[in-house]
């Protein structure tokens, strides 16, 4: 496909990823133009504000309507988007992006460097709620060198910067829109993406139509894309199977087998680094004792958990926050289910008669409670008497998250090692929730981000992972696959494991 051929000018990020992204329904013949693609989803598209949206069904919409400077490609590498090419300084503190010529927003105004600057200034503005802010907080300044050139200066060296600019919430908006009332961003879409917003009904259907002026010649192929909302999963599945819907955005594990074996359907399973983790606070009894954390780790049958909760659609994890998709991920020693060893560890830690614990799980999404219940059952023989307390999400967010001593969290895959560590584990991480605060770990992560020398980065990240596995801030039992499905006539549909990039400009309908 055409964008693979675009020359990469990034010297820093010539990475090769082990993961081969599966693409279903190998394209038969030349793409055909036209047609409307119907996508079903089960969560609402509550807002279209690029800066703050976070809903699973909101990402495909902005992925269609907006472009970022860069974008994460199907190979999980940053690929050109609005920026045709980029280069970084050797010390990784300065990055220059070169924009495509002649790109216009959907309303016809040209997209230039000043729009990029306005967008990044909005993201970095502390008064504006912006999801990408925590990933881009190393930016010191951004300036428009000329109409088509943008230069970023960073406070600290950061090798993965072009990956950060690909953040799904860092799409380029027009300077004019950002200068106006930000409330308008909630409903009014003016991007540079392959599709234009036609109608937005948050309760039912959101419809986008082809952007004839899209900057990649000949794309998109489709005339329109419709996002249909089905809050009930059973209803969504049934409608998809009956052929009313072309793409089912997210397939539940429980339905995957049934859907994949249905005639006329291509089910797509993308291995991903998404995980449910057990949070244990280092500053609270009894988890301040490593032996307790380890005991729990050995009290979990990870393969069984994958089979029961994920219907086998995932991979057992052994507490490494990095999944095999990550380049610098080390071979992680397997922790086999060993209740006896767990029991011994508990006894060593001073709990020979077992331990009574309350494990909190938010009721959304249901997988948190499911994993918690499974852990409760598996840990019983090891002497853990776990009482699962399921609570409404709002109560959880207000009272438990980042405060509670023992609860279930759920995170999607991040694009880089650095983003992953800085999201949760470093002492100044955005969502630091364990109280681990390990200076050595912080230094290793810092070392990894600031050097551009491959071997040094590998060394730093390896040590960081070893330290993490030894200290065991989280129990991570599995990586969950991303599941989606399409009708047979849908060609070129694929997903990124991060599940925020959808490449719908490549999709066409083979009638």
């Amino acid at each position: 496909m055409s964008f693979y051929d675009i020359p990469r000018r990034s010297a820093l990020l010539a990475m090769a990823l082990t993961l081969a992204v599966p693409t279903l329904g190998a394209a038969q013949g030349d793409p055909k133009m036209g047609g409307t693609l119907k996508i079903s989803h089960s969560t609402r598209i509550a807002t279209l504000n690029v800066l703050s949206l976070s809903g699973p069904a909101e990402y495909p919409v902005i992925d269609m309507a907006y472009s970022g400077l860069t974008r994460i490609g199907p190979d999980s590498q940053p690929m050109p988007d609005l920026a045709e090419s980029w280069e970084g300084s050797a010390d990784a503190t300065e990055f220059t992006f070169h924009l495509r010529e002649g790109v216009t927003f959907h309303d016809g105004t040209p997209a230039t460097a000043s729009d990029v600057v306005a967008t990044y200034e909005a993201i970095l503005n502390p008064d504006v709620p912006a999801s990408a802010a925590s990933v881009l907080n190393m930016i010191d300044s951004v300036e428009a060198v000329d109409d088509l050139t943008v230069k970023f200066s960073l406070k600290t060296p950061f090798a993965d910067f072009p990956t950060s600019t690909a953040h799904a919430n860092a799409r380029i908006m027009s300077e004019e829109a950002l200068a106006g009332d930000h409330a308008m961003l909630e409903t009014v879409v003016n991007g540079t993406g392959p599709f234009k917003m036609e109608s937005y009904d948050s309760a039912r259907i959101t419809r986008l139509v082809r952007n004839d002026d899209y900057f990649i010649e000949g794309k998109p192929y489709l005339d329109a894309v419709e996002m249909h909302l089905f809050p009930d999963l059973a209803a969504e599945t049934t409608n998809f199977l009956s052929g009313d819907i072309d793409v089912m955005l997210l397939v539940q594990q429980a339905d995957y087998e049934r859907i994949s074996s249905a005639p006329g359907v291509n089910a797509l399973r993308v291995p991903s680094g998404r995980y449910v983790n057990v949070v244990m606070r280092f500053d609270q009894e009894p988890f301040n004792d490593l032996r307790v954390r380890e005991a729990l780790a050995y009290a979990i049958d990870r393969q069984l958990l994958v089979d029961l909760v994920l219907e086998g659609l995932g991979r057992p994890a052994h507490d490494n926050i990095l999944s095999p998709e990550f380049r610098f991920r080390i071979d992680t020693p397997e922790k086999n289910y060993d209740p006896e060893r767990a029991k011994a560890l508990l006894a060593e830690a001073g709990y020979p008669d077992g331990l009574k614990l309350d494990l909190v799980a938010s009721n959304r999404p249901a997988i948190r409670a499911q994993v918690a219940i499974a852990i409760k059952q598996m840990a019983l023989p090891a002497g853990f008497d776990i009482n699962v307390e399921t609570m409404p999400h709002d109560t959880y967010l207000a009272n438990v998250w980042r405060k509670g001593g023992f609860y279930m969290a759920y995170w999607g895959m991040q694009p880089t090692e650095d983003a992953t560590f800085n999201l949760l584990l470093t002492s100044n991480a955005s969502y630091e929730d364990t109280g681990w605060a390990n200076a050595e770990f912080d230094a290793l992560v810092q070392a990894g981000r600031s050097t551009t020398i491959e071997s040094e980065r590998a060394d730093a990240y390896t040590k960081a992972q070893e330290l993490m596995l030894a200290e065991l801030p989280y129990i991570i039992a599995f990586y969950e696959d991303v599941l989606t499905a399409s009708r047979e006539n849908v060609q070129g549909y694929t997903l990124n494991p991060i599940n925020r990039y959808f490449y719908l400009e490549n999709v066409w309908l083979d009638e």
Partner: protein
Amino acid sequence: MPKAFRAAAGMTGLGLLLLVMGAAIFGPFVAPYDPQTFHPAARLQGPSATHWLGTDQFGRDLLSRLLNGAPSTVFFGLGATLLGVGAGSIIGVIAGTAGGWIDSVIMRILDGLLAVPELLFTLLIVTFLGGGMGQAMLAVAIAFTPGMARIARSSVLSIRTREYVLAAVARGERSHYIVLREVLPNAVGPIIVEATIRVAFAIMIGATLGFLGLGAQPPSTEWGLMVAEARQFMFRNAWTVAVPGVAIAMAAMGFNLFGDALRDSLDPRRSR
């Protein structure tokens, strides 16, 4: 209804009620398996000799879960009704016996509350109480209170004008004697009948809240929650949905039939 049918319906109701109450009281003790134990090798199976009603997605025995969930489901209905009927009766009796402006004020407030549909009212309360079994029970009880207060009041009012009550008043009996000995014992009939039928309704609302994720929370075996959890798997094993669903319907039907039979026996003229 013809006598024979009425009798049969009453017996069916009584039978269902005994079954459901039996499950609620003894269920957890007679359950063949632990309701939370996983049987990974036997997931989502239909009825078999080892699992009489089949298993769910974790291979948990459905019969055991059903039996274990009976107390929370049935006692939810009973508890919510009892609370609602208790509070409602107190308010209704106060309004009915006090009369005058107290009655007027109470009745206006009740009229207003009755203007909010019951399930909506319950949902609002339970959301703001924060979800969970106890909160849901309280919410249903609060939602029941206005209706019960109205029934209690009208029952008290109709008894209050009976001649034996007037005779007691004329005789100079103290008001607590009149309320407790003359009015209440005779006013409880309609209240009890209404309460019985409301238990059915409370069970249904409780299950609905569980289903919507606002009532019982996992790993509870409350029946409404069982349906909600099983919905994902309903096409793979319809038993997981049907078993708790039918159980809820049976419990509700038992109370409905029994309540109607009770009403008939207390007031043979009315056939509704």
